[in-house]
């Protein structure tokens, strides 16, 4: 009898596992294809402003957000499309925002670097490097004081390690045991400068100096990111306090779409190596096939579905109207 139950549960677990990792795969593909469309819109001069692509870093956003509830909070960065999508944002409204349309998440007033969405707990992408560390920590403060058992995740790049405000809020978070996960996406480059030229000591020591629980993971391996994130989120939710997660990853494109000639700061060979050997989507795809959860054809089917969905989202955004000019003075004050 015991054996039967175990087998049954194991089977159910396997099905749930398969469903979960296929969902994760689809999300990662969605981010990759979203960004391919952004690149296309930008190079065709349909998108104003700046575009900072997240391609190559998908495992971080998806691995972390998969460990969160819809009502948990995130703050994001100028390279934030991946975080917003991973937390559940709709590509339709995101593309609309990127094009400055009224149907966008911020009615076109924020653009690529400021997407925010209360429905998915997204407190906003932030175009000041390290600018959202206070906001995320404050969300953790509210969760504790209002006793909501929510958790806040603060995404930032390794460039934000140069900002003093990060250390001020990590000190506060640890003193007051706030449920905040600081996620350092180390994509190796502070804009056009390798992080080793700007960062003394080790990254993790910055967190452990405050007594904050810290870990370093392979940011290309979504399962590893997810496993540690799940542990940290659970701990924070139960009142265990903040944690710091360093995810080593790589930015496939330039700092922004216009950063094309990059050889003065990094080689094409380096980029190629990450893309062929360390691609997070390929790595998960191979694992799914090894597990028997998918085959090459079914994975291609997922990509095809996502591709079509993105095309529809782009079409929606391109055809959507701009906000009326009267909108310019709305929402300065609540």
């Amino acid at each position, binding site marked *: 009898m015991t054996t039967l139950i175990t087998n049954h549960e194991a089977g159910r677990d396997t099905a749930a596992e398969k469903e979960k990792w296929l969902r994760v795969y689809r999300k990662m593909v969605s981010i990759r294809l979203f960004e391919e469309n952004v690149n296309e819109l930008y190079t065709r001069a349909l998108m104003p402003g700046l575009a900072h692509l997240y391609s190559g870093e998908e495992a971080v956003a998806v691995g972390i957000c998969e460990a969160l509830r819809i009502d948990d909070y995130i703050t994001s960065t100028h390279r934030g499309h991946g975080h917003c999508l991973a937390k559940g944002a709709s590509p339709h409204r995101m593309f609309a925002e990127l094009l400055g349309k009224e149907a966008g998440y911020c009615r076109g007033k924020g653009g690529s670097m400021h997407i925010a969405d209360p429905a998915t707990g997204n407190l*906003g992408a932030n175009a000041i490097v390290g*600018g959202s560390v206070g906001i995320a920590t*404050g969300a953790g403060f509210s969760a504790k004081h*209002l006793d909501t058992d929510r958790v806040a995740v603060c995404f930032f790049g390794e460039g934000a390690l140069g900002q003093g405000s990060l250390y001020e809020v990590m000190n*506060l978070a640890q003193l007051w045991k706030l449920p905040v996960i600081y996620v350092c996406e180390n994509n190796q480059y502070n804009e056009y400068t390798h992080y080793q030229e700007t960062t003394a000591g080790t990254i993790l020591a910055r967190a452990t100096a405050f007594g904050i629980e810290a870990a370093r993971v392979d940011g290309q391996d979504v399962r590893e990111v997810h496993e540690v994130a799940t542990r940290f989120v659970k701990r924070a939710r139960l009142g265990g306090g903040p944690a710091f997660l360093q995810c080593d990853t790589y930015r496939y494109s330039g700092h922004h779409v216009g950063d094309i000639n990059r050889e003065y700061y990094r080689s094409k060979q380096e980029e190629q190596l990450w893309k062929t050997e360390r691609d997070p989507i390929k790595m998960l795809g191979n694992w799914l096939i090894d597990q028997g959860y998918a085959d090459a054809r079914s994975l291609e089917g997922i990509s095809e579905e996502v591709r079509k969905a993105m095309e529809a989202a782009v079409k929606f955004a391109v055809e959507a109207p701009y906000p009326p000019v009267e909108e310019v003075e709305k929402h300065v*004050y609540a």
Partner: protein
Amino acid sequence: MPERELTFAQAVREALAEEMRRDSRICILGEDVAEAGTPFKVLSGLVEEFGPQRVLDTPISEAGFTGLAVGAAMTGMRPIVDIMFGDFITLTMDQMVNQAAKVHYMSGGHWKVPMVMRTTLGATRRSAAQHSQSLQAWFSHVPGLKVVLPSTPYDAKGLLKAAIRDENPVVFFEDKMMYKLKGPVPDEDYTIPLGVADVKREGDDITFIATSSMVQVALGAASLLEKEGISAEVVDPRTTWPLDEKTLIDSAKKTSRVIVLDEGYGRYGVTAELASVVAEGAFYDLDSPVKRMGAMHVPIPFSPPLEDATVPTEQSVFEAARKMCK
């Protein structure tokens, strides 16, 4: 029954206590705000009533705890941050200017930041260049922020309660030299809407438009002028934003002469903006150019005779007004 009198500091404390009793989401964050009650003792007794979960001593991290307050305000709390000296607002500028002020607009109206920053202004306390500035112009410059400059205990209580209930980030400047000033304050709940100027004294010959500490200076100068047969009106905008332009312009039209007073630096300052409002709105009714008086454009010096020379006084305002009315 005689009217109850409170000091400015007591009026601030009463406003905070009444609001904290009304709304459990309100908390106070700052350096030495709990048992110490701040170096000015403005917050004495609050931690005893509301506990250390609502009156929180922070590390000396102005940017950190202000940033935390922005996030807390967005997610359901109503934080009040205490920045001990107004000079220290420089440390919070990214959090206030790039975050708090812009969140509502940038998110298309989705997120709100109902927080208050209380801080101080004012020279002549012998505190030298980094503890004596009046930097209200900095925040008044930024869309998305509201800026309050109370000049009496009555206004301090009513305006602070309104600031706390506001859905936007509000910066509330208290003149630290005024904390002991006494005045009538009702022992009841009242608010003063932000954006409504108050005529502190009526007059016919000249208008002083004055903020915060300079309201008291202007009232003193008006008394001196009265002995000379000159009738001065004192108008207090009470908030630099929102700004009650109409009351300022109406008074300028009535008296035809205006001196604008604010303790901040004159250059690109509050006085410049207020003078511009008057000039645009009442130009054809004016008998002389609008005069501005504020802090000299020097870092505030320590040495008492030097420091005293940097800010307008009753005497200097009286003389300027008398000259204008000749």
